C-alpha cells in the first residue's frame, strides 16, 4: 500500500505504530468525524490571514469586554469599524510552546500548535514539527475541491508559513495575475457549464502516473528521510492528477460563483514602494471568488512575513526594522499595523457582500487573523493578537471581545475553530501546547 501523508497522519493519530522509519509527524488530534456542511448544502470553509511582526499591545487591545456596546475598538483596530459586528477579538492569550528563537518560535507555536523544531546544533533556523493549522484543517475538509488549499501573499518576498509537515512549505502566490490564470484561467468553468472535454487531460494524467512510478521506484532505494520527502512529492502529483480528473467533471454549482475580472498584469513598485493595497485587494477578490466557486475550502493569505522589510506606504523603513529601531511610542509601527487592519477590513467586507443561501459567504466560514508575536520590539508571545471573522455557520461568536486575564493557551482558540468546522478532535497541540478544551467564550 502506498502510504500517503494522510494515511501516515491518521496512522499516527490512531496510535498505530508506524513501523516505516519515516520521521514521525506528531499527533495533532484524533479524527473520527467528518466535516459537516452548513445549511443549504453549503460547505464549511477556513481562512487564515497572517501578517508579520505583531502589534503594539498598548494600542491594540480594546477597552471593555463582552458583546455589542460593552467594548470599543482600539486605535489599532479602528480601521475595522465597519465590520465590528462581524468579527470577534480575542486578546490576552499566550503561546505555551516556548520562545527560543525570535519570530521563528512564535510562527511555529502560533500556526502549528507545537514548538519550533530546531536543528540540534543550535542553528538559527528551524522548521515546523507538523502541519500548520490551515493544512491540519485542509486534510479534513479540503479533499473534495479542485484545490485542497490555496496560498496567496501580498508583500514582495513573502514566503508564508503554510506547512504540510517538516521542511515542506506551501509557497504562496504573490502575483495576482498568475493567481487569476491558475484558478480562473482557461480550465475554469462557471456553474452550469460542462466539464472540459480534451484528450490532453487524460494524457497528462498518464504522464503523472509515470512520474508516480518513478517516485515509487526511487523510494525503495533511498534513506527514510528522503523517502518521506519523496512521499510528499508523490502526494502533490496525486493531487494534481485528481485535479485534472475533476476538470472533466461538471463544475461545482454555487449561486454566488462567477468568473471574476482579470487583475492588472503587473503591479510595479512606485518610487521604491510596492503597491501593497492594490495587490492585496486584487488578491483578496480572487481568493474570495475561488472560495465562492468552491475551487477550494481552505486558504491562507500571507500579508507579510516576519522579518519582512519591504516598505509600507509613507513609513521610512521596513516593518521589522522599525519594530526594533523606532524610538518612543513607535508611531510608524502603529501606522503599519493600522494599514494592515484597513486591508483586512476590505477583505471581510467583501466576504460579507457575497450572498450565499440565507446569509453571506462570511457566515459559512471562519477566518483566523493573527501574527507570530505581539509586541514586535520584544518578540513577546504573550497577549497575542487574534481576530476571528465569520461565524462558521453559526458556531463561532461574532461581535465580541474576549480578554483572557490568565494568559490562556492560544491553542484553545485553534481547537474551537477546528471543532466549529465539524472536525471531531479531542485535542490540539503538542506537549506544553496541548489542549483538550476549546475556548468556550468564542463558541456558540
Amino acid at each position, binding site marked *: 500500500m502506498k502510504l500517503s501523508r494522510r494515511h501516515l497522519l491518521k496512522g499516527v493519530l490512531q496510535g498505530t505504530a508506524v513501523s516505516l522509519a519515516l520521521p514521525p509527524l506528531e499527533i495533532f488530534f484524533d479524527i473520527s468525524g467528518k466535516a459537516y456542511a452548513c445549511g443549504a448544502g453549503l460547505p464549511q470553509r477556513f481562512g487564515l490571514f497572517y501578517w508579520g511582526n505583531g502589534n503594539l499591545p498598548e494600542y491594540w487591545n480594546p477597552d471593555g469586554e463582552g458583546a455589542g456596546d460593552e467594548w470599543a475598538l482600539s486605535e489599532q483596530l479602528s480601521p475595522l469599524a465597519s465590520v465590528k459586528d462581524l468579527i470577534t477579538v480575542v486578546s490576552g492569550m499566550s503561546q505555551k510552546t516556548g520562545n527560543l528563537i525570535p519570530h521563528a518560535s512564535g510562527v511555529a507555536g502560533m500556526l502549528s500548535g507545537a514548538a519550533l523544531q530546531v536543528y540540534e546544533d*543550535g542553528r538559527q533556523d528551524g522548521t515546523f514539527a507538523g502541519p500548520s493549522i490551515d493544512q491540519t484543517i485542509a486534510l479534513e475538509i479540503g479533499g473534495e475541491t479542485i484545490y485542497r488549499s490555496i496560498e496567496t501573499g501580498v508583500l514582495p518576498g513573502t514566503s508564508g508559513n503554510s506547512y504540510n509537515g517538516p521542511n515542506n512549505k506551501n509557497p504562496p502566490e504573490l502575483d495576482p495575475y498568475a493567481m487569476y490564470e491558475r484558478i480562473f484561467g482557461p480550465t475554469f468553468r462557471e456553474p452550469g457549464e460542462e466539464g472540459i472535454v480534451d484528450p490532453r487531460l487524460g494524457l497528462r494524467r498518464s504522464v503523472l502516473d509515470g512520474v508516480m512510478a518513478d517516485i515509487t521506484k526511487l523510494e525503495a532505494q533511498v534513506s527514510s528521510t528522503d523517502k518521506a520527502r519523496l512521499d510528499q512529492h508523490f502526494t502533490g502529483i496525486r493531487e494534481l492528477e485528481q485535479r485534472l480528473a475533476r476538470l472533466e467533471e461538471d463544475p461545482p454549482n454555487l449561486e454566488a460563483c462567477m468568473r471574476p475580472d482579470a487583475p492588472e498584469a503587473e503591479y510595479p513598485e512606485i518610487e521604491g514602494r510596492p503597491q501593497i493595497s492594490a495587490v492585496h485587494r486584487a488578491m483578496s477578490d480572487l481568493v474570495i471568488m475561488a472560495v465562492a466557486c468552491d475551487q477550494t475550502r481552505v486558504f491562507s493569505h500571507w500579508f507579510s512575513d516576519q522579518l519582512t522589510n519591504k516598505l509600507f506606504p509613507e513609513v521610512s523603513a521596513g516593518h521589522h526594522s522599525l519594530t526594533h529601531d523606532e524610538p518612543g511610542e513607535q508611531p510608524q509601527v502603529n501606522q503599519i499595523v493600522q494599514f494592515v487592519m484597513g486591508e483586512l477590513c476590505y477583505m471581510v467586507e467583501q466576504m460579507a457582500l457575497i450572498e450565499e443561501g440565507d446569509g453571506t459567504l462570511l457566515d459559512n466560514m471562519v477566518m483566523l487573523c493573527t501574527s507570530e508575536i505581539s509586541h514586535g520590539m520584544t518578540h513577546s508571545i504573550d497577549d497575542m493578537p487574534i481576530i476571528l471573522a465569520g461565524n462558521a455557520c453559526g458556531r463561532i461568536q461574532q461581535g465580541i471581545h474576549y480578554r483572557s486575564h490568565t494568559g490562556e493557551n492560544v491553542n484553545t482558540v485553534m481547537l474551537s475553530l477546528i471543532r466549529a468546522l465539524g472536525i471531531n478532535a479531542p485535542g490540539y497541540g503538542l506537549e506544553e501546547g496541548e489542549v483538550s478544551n476549546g475556548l468556550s467564550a468564542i463558541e456558540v
Partner: protein
Amino acid sequence: MIRFQSAGFVLCALFLASCAEDSPKRVSDDVREPLDIELPAPVLRRLNQAQYGRAVHDLLGEDVVLPTSLEPDERIDGLRAIGSAVTTISPRGVEQYEQAAFDLAAQALDTKGERKRFLPCLQDNDFPDPCIEGFFRDFGPRVWRRPLTDLEVDRMTGISIRAGGLLGDAYEGLEFGLAAMLQSPNFLFRVELGEPDPDAPGEYRFTDYEMATRLSFLLWDTIPDAELLQAASRGDLTDAEGLEEQVDRMLSDDRVEDGLRAYFTDMFSLYSLDELNKDPTVFTHMSPEVGPAAREETLLGILHLVQDQDGDFRDLLTTRTTFLDRRLSSIYGVPAPIWDGFGMTEWPKDHGRRGFLGQVSFLAGHSHAVASSPTLRGKFIREVLLCHMIPAPPADVDTSIPEPVEGRVTMRDRVAKHLEDDYCAGCHSITDPIGLGLENFDGLGHWRDREYGTTIDPSGELDGAPFDDAWDLAARMREHPDLPECLTKTVLSYASGRTLSDGEWDAVRYHAEGLEAEGHSFLALLRDVALSPAFRNTGGQP
C-alpha cells in the same frame, strides 16, 4: 524528532555552550589521512532554481524561455545547497513543474528548426516508432544524467505515440514524452545512491554516472556535458586517473565561472541582495539596482582572483582591485572606471577600503535599514568566514538600539550596552568588537569620518587582540588560522549537500592543509575535493 546531522565540530559545540568561551582553538593537531572516515548516507538534492534553468538551457537550447515561478530555494545551516537536500516539492511546486515541463517541451518541439535538431530522423509529421524510441534512448540520458532502462524508454515512447495518435500530431505527442522526463524525480532530484565498492568490501562509492552529476554541479553548477557522460560510460569516473583527467578538463573550461558564481553566491548569501532594503531618506544613493550591482562587484572580484589569476584566496580580504559600475562608484566616491557596465579599478593607496570587507555587498547586506550594524557585520565574519557559531539572540529582550542623544551619538556609544551588560556581552563580545572596526562605513557602505559630528573611532578587537581600523582588521582576517578551514568546511558541505558529520572533521583538516600547500588556491581546493575519497565515496543506505 527528526534528527539532523549535527554540525559536529567540537569547537562549534564549545562555542555554542557559552558565548563567553575564549576564541576557538583547534581540537587536535594530528592530521589523519581521511581515507577511513565514516561517511553518512547519501542525500537526495533537488535542483535549485538556477540549476533547473541552466539544465534546461543545456538540454533544449539557450533560446527557450524559462518558467518564472518554481519551488523556492531555502537556506538551511547557512547554505541553499543544504536546503535543497532537506526540503521537498510542495503540491504547488508539482503544479509549476508540470506546467513548466509542457511549456518547455512545446518550445523545443513546436517549430520546424528546433524539431530537426532533436529528431533528425523525422520527416514532416509521419515518423516511424523507432525514431521516437531512438530519441529517448539518445536524448534521455542527458535529461536524467544516466542511461534509461528499456522499460523507461518504452514508457516514454509509448506515451508519445499514444498522444501523437490521439492528437493527430506526432510532434505534439512527443511533447508528452519529453514533459514526462522533465517532471520526473529523476530530473528534478539528483539521484546519487551509491553502489558497493568492488575494491573495498563493505564500502560504498558513487557510480560513474553519479560522479558525472556530482562533478558537473560542483564545478559548473549544471548537468554533465556529453563528454562527461561518455567518460562515465567508459568507467573513467570511478578510476583515479580518468577522474583526474575530467576534473582538469572541467576546471580549465569557461563554465567553471558558473560554478564559482554559484558557490560564492551561496556561501555569502549574495542572492539576498535582491531584497536589499534601505531607508531612501537616510541613504540617498539607494535604488533597487544597488543590491544586484554590489553582488556583481563581489563576484567579478572573486572570478578575477580565483579564475583569472588562480591567486591566494585570502587576498580577497586585502586586495585593492575591484570592479565597479557608475552606480557603485558614486557610493564609493571614486571616479567610475568605465561608462557602461563594470570596469576594473584599484582603490587609491590612501583609501580606507580594502577587499571584501570594504564592499557594499557585505557592508550594506549586514546592516540595518537606517544604520550600520557592528553586530550583524561581526556575526557574518564569525559565522561565514570563520565558521564560528553564534546562538540566536534571546527572544524576550528589547533589542532596539538607543537613539543618538547628546553625548552618545556614535554607533559605538549606542551599542556599548551590549558589552557593558553581562547578559548581552556573552554573545555580543564575540561579534561587536569586530564589527566596530568597520564603523567608517555607514549602513550602505559609504565612507564616513564622522557620525553626527563626532570623529569615529574605528578600532576593534579580534579574538582578544586589538586592531586599529578596517585595514588592520582585513590584514588580520587574512591571516586568521580558521579562515582556510572554514572555507574548506563550507566547500565540503556544499559539495555533499549536507551538514558535515563529526567524522568528516578529519577531511576538513586534511583538505585545509592541502589548500595551504597549494598557496591557498581555491581552484586547487576544488580539485582536491573533487578527487577526494569523501567526494567519491558514500555511506550505504541505512
